[in-house]
Every structure is written in C-alpha cells, then in structure tokens.
C-alpha cells in the first residue's frame, strides 16, 4: 500500500478553569506572543465570557470556560505552537489547570479503496464480526497505553479520514494529568515533552500505516 501524508496537525488542549474573554488577538499582541500584523489580520470569530475563537495564518485558538485549545496545520509552526502556549500560561501563572493534551492528527491518503479496506481489516480483523454482521466495517478504533501511571496515557485513534478519500486518520493524544492545578508543572511537561511527543506520534502513525 502506498500512502501519502496529506494533512498533519498539532494541537495542545488544556483543561482547567479559564476566562475566555481575555483570549483576544490584542492581548496576545500586547504581550509579545504574536506579531502585530498577525493580530491585526486575525480572523476573530467570537469573543465572549463563555467562549473565544480566533485564528491567524498559522494557528486557530478556541477557549471555553473549561478548555483551552490551540491548533496548527503547518508543520513549520509546530515548535511555535508550544512557545505560544508556554508564553500564554507563563503570563497566566495562577490559572488553574488540571490536564494537558499534546496531540498530533494525521490524514493519510491511500492509493486505492482496496488498500484502504485491507488496512481496516489488518488493524481490526473482521472474523469475529462475520458471524453476526454481513459487511462489518471499521468506523473508529482507539487503543490506549498507560504512561507512568493510569492517569497519564497515550491514546491512538484510527478512523476513515473525513478529509481525504480514500484516506486514514491517525490521531495520537498524549494526556497528562496535572496535580494541584499546578501551571508550572504543566509548563515543565510541555517544555520537556513537546518535541518527543510529536516525534513519537509520527512514529506510531508511520508504524501503523505501513502494516500490510
């Protein structure tokens, strides 16, 4: 099976307690976290005490009262995504946070529908299903590996791609629980793990996609 990586995104999701209204392009510009021209040309979707959403050329940010999410589809900005998040929470150093997710989402295009089915059969054998279903097909499969303890984990999800057809989505979630709502601990995990996590996520995807 030949496959091509069509889209490759990285995202950082933080759970905690946030004040969405402050997450505005002007705030990021004032604090030197984004370029002035990026702030001026930001696409502001909504700013509200319950939710804020805006995007600039290379990232999209969405903050709700319990969830901070920032995502980029540009591999040349993966490192910068971590800088942006670390800069943000260095300034919001007393903001309670309870979990950190570092994610890589990859959509691979495969060369034929047959190869696409073969991949699904390989990763989720249908033998057991044929006894009860006529044409079982894989819609979603999630595999989890505990990391260090059962609170932290790597979760790998495989699904048909919604972006490329025929294609495969491989999404890797690296989840860390943050004790005592400690922002410094979260920053330290992000700083030390981001590159490794992205590299390992890609390694997992490459390993899976090459199964035949």
């Amino acid at each position, binding site marked *: 099976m030949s496959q091509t990586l*069509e*889209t*490759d*995104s990285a*995202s950082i*999701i*933080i*759970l905690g307690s946030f004040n969405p209204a402050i997450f505005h392009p002007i705030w990021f510009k004032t*604090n*030197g*976290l*984004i*370029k*002035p*021209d*990026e702030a001026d040309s930001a696409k502001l*979707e*909504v*700013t*509200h005490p*319950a*939710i804020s*959403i805006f*995007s600039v050329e290379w990232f*999209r940010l*969405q903050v*709700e009262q*319990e*969830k901070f*999410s920032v*995502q980029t*589809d*540009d*591999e*040349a*900005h993966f*490192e*910068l995504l971590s*800088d*942006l998040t*670390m*800069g943000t929470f*260095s*300034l919001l150093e007393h903001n309670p946070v309870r*979990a950190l*997710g570092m*994610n890589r*989402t990859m959509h691979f295009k495969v060369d034929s529908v047959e190869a696409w089915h073969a991949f699904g059969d390989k990763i989720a054998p249908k033998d057991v299903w044929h006894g009860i279903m006529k044409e079982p097909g894989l819609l*979603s499969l999630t595999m989890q590996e505990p990391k260090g303890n059962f609170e932290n984990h790597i*979760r790998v*999800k495989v*699904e048909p791609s*919604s*972006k*490329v057809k025929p294609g495969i*989505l491989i*999404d890797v*979630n690296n*989840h860390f629980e943050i004790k005592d709502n400690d922002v410094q601990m979260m920053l330290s995990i992000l700083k030390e793990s981001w*590159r490794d996590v992205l590299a390992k996520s890609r390694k997992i995807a490459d390993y899976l996609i090459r199964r035949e």
Partner: protein
Amino acid sequence: MRISTEHTTAEQAREDYIVVPNIKPVAGERQGTLVNDLVGTSTELPKELAEGSYVVRIPSAAAIPRHRFKVLQKFEGTVLEISGQECRALIRDLTSPGNVEEVTLSVEEISESDRSLAVPGGIFYWYIGYDDHIGGQRYRSSAIIFRRFPFWREKDLVNAKKKASSLIERLGWKREDTTHQR
C-alpha cells in the same frame, strides 16, 4: 458533553456541542433554538451562532489548507551578532541532532516583523522544505521564524542565578570575575 484533551475530529464536532442558555448573543438579542445540523468539517462560524443562536460549537476540524509546508530540515539558531546586513548565528540541526555550526545569513532573509527580535541572543527556527500548493505546484522554500517568548521576569532571573550558584558550588568552581553578574 465529552471533555478530554483529545483533539476533536470532524465527526465529533458534529456531535459535540453545548447549549448555553444564559449566553447573550454577540451579534444581537435574538432568541435562538437548539440546532443539531452543525457542519463539522467547516471552519466557518456556524450560521446559528453568527445570527445569535444559543448554540456554541466545540472545535470543528479545519479545512484542508491551500498549501502545505513539508519540512525537510529544521534548525534552531541563536543570533551571535548583527553587523550591517549580515546576521551571524549558531545553528543546531534538529533533524539530525548533534550538528552545530556557525552560519552567516542575510538580514533580508528575516521577515520585517521579526527583525526587532534579531538581536544577539535571539532564538529562531529555520525551516527548509517544500511548499506544496493545492494545485500541485511545489516550491522549494526556506523560512526563518523567531521565537516569541514573554520577557524574563525578575523571579526567573533570581531562580536562574540560584541554580547557577548551586551548580558552581557542586562543581567546586571558584567565581573570580563577578563584574558581569546582575
């Protein structure tokens, strides 16, 4: 509502939305109703929200970008000196860790908006790769992007100084020249 640190896929985006009855709509005071036909693959603000509905969407997946930068090689650099139109820097290969070399770049390579950050000690990423466009064109491309990080705060400097002192003590070194210490 699911709440996790996983990235929300297009499929989930269609399913995961919350209804917040006490939100005053941004775009007006119109009373909204629950809708369940949000298009998860769109990056556009849902029409219902733009028009003032009470429905708030959890992230949708972004559309396929019009171009994609495929990184072939990446470096992390530290500016050593800016002299006229030249920038001397030390670069560390992040693709094959271990290689460090000194390079001289033209200041012209640095975007206007990043030039204020191009000072000795400034840190940047240098990417070399292909810029693939949706129409199939491929351009060889290079990008220099400076890191933006909040300024060092006094307590960070104090902590760093403490760590350095502790390390010096453990190594048994003597501090002779203190003229450059803060």
